[in-house]
């Protein structure tokens, strides 16, 4: 089992979700986060006081999958979240020890 953590631009969320649905991946968790990599922030001015805002809003998407589904899911995310401009984000793949479905007590691959 692996966990995919993807940081993507917020407006790409619907597209990525639809692409994962087409692969049969129905469950995921998303969080609204802030961050930056190489993308610069922007400046805001209030009555002559300038503020540089470094942290940009992003979406963090987390999904846990059986090993076999990982490669396809990563490819789908990268393809749909890409705009070609700085700030597109990153995908991380992490190992997962176990998973349990709370309703049915199933464990392992049956739980994801």
């Amino acid at each position, binding site marked *: 089992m692996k966990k995919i953590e993807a940081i993507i631009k917020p407006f790409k969320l619907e597209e990525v979700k639809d692409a994962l649905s087409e692969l049969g991946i129905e469950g995921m968790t998303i969080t609204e986060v802030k961050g930056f990599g190489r993308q610069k922030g922007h400046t*805001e*001015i*209030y*009555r*002559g*006081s300038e*503020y540089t*805002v470094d942290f940009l809003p992003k979406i963090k998407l987390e999904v846990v999958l059986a090993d076999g589904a990982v490669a396809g899911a990563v490819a789908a995310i990268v393809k749909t979240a890409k705009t070609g401009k700085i700030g597109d984000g990153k995908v991380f793949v992490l190992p997962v020890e176990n998973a349990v479905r709370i309703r049915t007590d199933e464990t392992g691959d049956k739980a994801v």
Partner: protein
Amino acid sequence: MKKKTKSMVRLLAALASMAILGAVTSTLHAQSAAAPAPAAAPTPYPANTNAFASASLTNQVAFLEAAHSNSDPTPTGIAYESDPGHNAWMMVASAFVLMMTLPGLALFYGGLVRSKNVLSMLAMCFGITCLVSLLWWAFGYSLVFGTNFTPTGSTSTLGFILGGTENFFFKGVTSAPNSSYAFWVSQNVYSIFQLTFAIITPALIFGATAERLKFSAVMAFVFLWMFVVYFPLAHMVWGSTGLMNGVWNASAKIPAIDFAGGTVVHMSSGWTALILCLILGKRVGHGKEPMPPHSLVLTFIGTALLWVGWYGFNAGSAVAADVIAANAFTTTTLATAIGALTWPLVEWIFKGKPTVLGFCSGAVAGLVVITPACGFVNSTGAVIIGVVAGTVPYIFATIVKNIFKYDDALDTFGVHGIGGTCGALLTGLLVDPNVNGNLQAVSAGTPHNAAMDNGLITAITNHSLVLAQSKAVIITILLAVVGTTIIGYVVKMIIGLRPTAEAEQQGLDITDHDETGYILQ
């Protein structure tokens, strides 16, 4: 000390101060009731006592025409009474001005601070509204608009600065007009109208000290400031025996004019704000941490409520639904709109983009600068004032503030202090007697115009009114600066002004009120 002990001490302190206040006020009340009231300053006309029904038809018609045109009904011999039209307008105007504080100013300021301090701005506005109402009823109205400190037929130094005691606790303040101030508006309505001015003036101050002044210090400061600064200044400018009441006091030493409060409201609060924010010092993290407005949406709503409410402030200062109010209504609109156009335009040119905060600031600046002038200038003057309002306060709020680095958090000094000063001086330069009959010499045979006796009309015809205005400006600044310095340090010594640094970091909403403004899922 322990929490329970602290609460007991606070309870005892509150009970003690209430007992003292009760003892003092009942003594004063007994005094003012028992002592033979000194004769009021001479009213220019004899009191009318005859009823309408027993008057001649000619006098009855003349009486009704006097109501219609907001003129003096004394020649008809019929007793004064309030007129429904003028009274209705003044009640609406009072409601509008109250709305300027609750919620206009509250939201304007609330949106400009960080979210952890939003409630502190709302609490400040509400607390001041209630405290000042109490003080106004007990002492304020009489100290501003009373007359018994001035001996009959002459003047006194005290009488120039404060009015009198005859209306303490609203004694004598009924629905009948007080002809010193209005022939056709109930005195109680007039008093409440003026109360709404007395409320918003101190509330303006605390924009400068936002996010780092304790609520208890705000209340204590306002309590003292009303007596030391506001009541004397309002009396000097608007009281019938005031030192600087050019329009109405024939014995005024300084024939200055201020229609709705450029000196009384904006200069007093603005210059007080400057001194207080200097005494207080900067916010923790100022200059390093970003402190942008947490909700310009709230600030915009507050601005719009201020603009609409200000019609009550400016046009209501005519104390009648008459042609002078109509002029003030017009000049207010033009100056505000032009101010709101100019400020963002200056931003667009010099900073690259027009901002919503620029629109809001320009509108408020326009409203401030037109305030003393609205009933005394024409529409062209109003447009000129709008342009000045969009530029001079802009320079102070952005450039000057950044040079001298004082933390006037919400630009009370930049907009109200400087704007009010500009307005007071521009009133002298742009005054047009054609829009206000009280500035015109009256022909022989009609009741004498106070402005003819104190030099106001002479100053207008000589184009030297700006000198009297300058004197009024200087006196206002001195009173605000000296008064605030004294009161600020007194409050600082007795209960302290600032919260601790941790409390300030946590936010005044929690530390002063145990509340959070936004509990979002």
